[in-house]
């Protein structure tokens, strides 16, 4: 079972350019999330979606947008990248509504904005 697939695995992006990080899950989980991981700051929630067609803002949403057109896909878009968005981005999913349902993470996208 693939679980969560993220693409690309890494990317170097010029400041001011746009980019979409892709995330697909095959577990039919209703909830999906985007986190960024920075050294010394841990995992911070960017955006989330409780179910297809809905999205919500996390702790650090500025500069990012998401969409959830269907259950399986949850792309994250940077409209105009800035160096402070250099980070490792993790997509995750869970069966929200199920007690103790864990987050299942992908292996991340390492993004460098120059």
């Amino acid at each position: 079972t693939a679980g969560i697939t993220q693409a690309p695995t890494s990317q170097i992006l010029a400041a001011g350019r746009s980019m979409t990080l892709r995330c697909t899950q095959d577990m039919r989980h209703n909830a999906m999330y985007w986190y960024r991981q920075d050294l010394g700051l841990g995992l911070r929630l960017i955006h989330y979606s409780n179910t297809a067609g809905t999205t919500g803002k996390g702790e650090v949403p500025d500069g990012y947008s998401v969409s959830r057109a269907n259950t399986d896909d949850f792309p994250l878009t940077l409209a105009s990248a800035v160096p402070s968005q250099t980070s490792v981005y993790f997509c995750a999913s869970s069966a929200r509504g199920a007690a103790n349902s864990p987050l299942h993470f992908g292996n991340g996208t390492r993004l460098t904005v120059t």
Partner: protein
Amino acid sequence: QQQVKQSPQSLIVQKGGIPIINCAYENTAFDYFPWYQQFPGKGPALLIAIRPDVSEKKEGRFTISFNKSAKQFSLHIMDSQPGDSATYFCAARAGGSQGNLIFGKGTKLSVKP
């Protein structure tokens, strides 16, 4: 505002030692406290979790101790092995199964042979 404070930031122990990682929280609405383990180049994975109605939970060599009155919880790794070397994150969630997880900043554990 950091809602889950984790310490230490890094930890080095010898094989067989018992590393302890501590977390503290302020929000009394938190009702679920998982620990995630992350190896280099991989995403975090659930290791063990506890609810506030119990004071301790063991799964293999991993134990969570929970002190509701002090609003603290900790992870103990018994008989630690080099393969346990990873980054560990505590987390907490409010709002029942609909709430989002709030993560601590992580602890990088190195277990020396």
